[in-house]
């Protein structure tokens, strides 16, 4: 039996949930970033899978989306990590529990 689109989507959903798990439950800012990156990777997997299983796969739309998404998430990671360092310099912690300046 060859894998169907469904299976890919379920794997992608699992990857997304794991990313969400990391982003939600870990205290360290870097973990949150890792989680977000995992979620983005899951989205990319969706793009590629949908492109591959689409009726007209000769148009590289999904691939293009994935490429741009990778480029943008690289930018996001760079800025995010820079912010982690900046926050660490300022507060001497990267524990997001202690970063609650925006508390209402």
């Amino acid at each position, binding site marked *: 039996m060859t894998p169907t689109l469904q299976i890919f989507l379920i794997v992608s959903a699992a990857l997304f949930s794991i990313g969400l798990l990391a982003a*939600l439950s870990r205290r360290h800012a870097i973990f*949150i970033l890792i989680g977000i990156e995992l979620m983005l990777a899951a989205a990319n997997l969706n793009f590629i899978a949908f492109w591959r299983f689409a009726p007209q796969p000769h148009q590289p739309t999904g691939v293009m989306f994935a490429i741009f998404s990778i480029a943008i998430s690289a930018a996001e990671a760079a800025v995010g990590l820079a912010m982690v360092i900046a926050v660490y310099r300022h507060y001497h912690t990267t524990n997001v*529990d202690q970063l*609650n300046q*925006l*508390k*209402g």
Partner: protein
Amino acid sequence: MSLIIHYLWLIPAVPLVASLAILSLANAWRRSAAALAVAGQTAALALSAVAFLPTLQTHGFRAVQNFTWFTFGDNALRLGFVLDPLAAAMLLMISLVGLCIFVFSIGYMAEDKNFVRFFAYLSFFSGAMLGVVVANSLLLLFIFWELVGLASYLLIGLWIERPSAAAAAKKAFITTRIGDMGFFVGMLWLYNRSGTLLFYDDGKGCLESAGLAMLGASATFIALLIFFGAVGKSGQFPLHVWLPDAMEGPTPVSALIHAATMVAAGVFLVARVYPLFSLGAINGVTSSLTVVVWIGVTTALMAALIAIAQADIKRILAYSTVSQLGLMMVSLGVGGMAAGIMHLLAHGFFKALLFLGSGSVIHGCHSEQDIRKMGGLRRFMPVTFVTYAIGMMALSGVPFFFSGGWTKEEILHAVGHWPPSRAPYYLMFAGVVLTAFYMTRQIIYVFFGNSRTAAKQAHESPPVMTIPLIVLALGAILLSIVLTPAWPWLHDYLTGESVHFEIGRLIQPMLFVSLALVSAGIGIAVWMYRKAGVQDGDRPADIDPLEHAQPALFRFLANKMWIDELYARTVIAFSWIAALLSDWMDRYFWDGLVRGFGAIGQVFAMFTAGVDERGINTGVDETTVGARGLGRLMSAAHSGQIQIYLGIVAIGMLALLLLYAWLA
């Protein structure tokens, strides 16, 4: 078809770009600013010369290039550039005179802290004016026209820290704006009638037969409305009041405004849309042209009279400009379009020369502008004196050697053949006499006699200022070669006829008439002011001989015929009274009305207050308490913990998924 027409847009664009580049420079980069401005102007001059060449080859040469600016609905708004003898000659004059003024400014403004800004505006001014000349669309012309207005505003108010400069800039802007209103309305009307604003468009333009045919009777009104714009720009009566006040700007700016750019725009505009004025002419006379003639006559005489009694060296020149522009308008009005434009071109040279010369005098006398405090300057400033005298004789219309003499003669000739009335002809005689009179008076005061207070430490200006003077003086003389009746090259170039030489036409009755008029003016002035220059050392010449003879008349003229005061009493007072009236209406009538309603409201309010106190207030209180509690609850959600926010987002997403499933 010549290649240059495709690059005609470069002529205004180069100075404008140079202006932008200069604006981006720091204040200390004086050399670069001046170099950029002069380079831009030189490029414009070179391009103008290139553009001039093809117009020489064919008589009545005209090349247009139109393009679509934007399209709305079915209508396309088209702009374009045109090259014909009128534009080519103007281009050459503006860029050459402008270049001289630019170079002169380097010396004149050397000490000024606004040097860089000044050159940026100067380039901008020149570029805008060049744009007016090459525009082939009334709209494009109007755009550049307004840019010229803006540039003049910026330059007149260059020394913004002086209240008088700021006021003069404002006055110039608002006064010309009144004229521009007319221009704008005329333009809209024209578009409504003819459906195009292009001047020339392969027979479909608004100045060509097909376009003109659609105008019918409205052409008169359109022409008059457009003329109103020219009245404002060219300082014609009744909108001339801004021009003398514009002397508040630096002297090179006055030279640029008076000679090459601003005021020339009005005369140029009338010449450009001349077919609108002359539409349906019987014997060369239409009602709109008649208006032009009489406005011109009034302006020319009135300004010449005022100039007699002025003491400020630049103000005399300013009123002389107003007067000369009136003369040009008269010439255009009586059908002597070529004569008017010729005078405009010649005037560009000698008036720039006079203004720069006066700038040199002011520079040499350490910013003194009162001619009664000068005197005897011909010994200290020989170059300035000689060039100034050339300019003065050209302006006075001394025949034979000076360009102004030939063009004035030509204008008088044209006015003399105006069918409806001979009055303008004789009034213009008076104008010529007056011009010679006040210029001689000025020269006597400034250059002859004993040196008075301000002239003690006078010195000649540096070469960077005198060389432009010499160039312009040569221009004022050499231009007469192409102006003589024996070989009226410029006249025929403008009208598109082929020129031929005939020495017999050189001597005409008109030559002697104008010689007599000019001699009369100069002679009377010399006789009246023979003693004015030789007063004792330190005492300024306080009593003018004319004032001695006719005190009341002199005061009337010295105060500019009280026209500013008249406007203050009428137009401005009217707005003031209208404002007071509306203020009173507001305060007492409308306010009373409002108060009355207010009283009714008050009674009603008293009633409802009772209801409020007892019934509603308690309810509102309870609601507030509830809202506050809710707010506390909500603010608890704002923990500042990003993970909680993210979790809420995830739950929201889940909720949406469930909602979708439930609906599907």
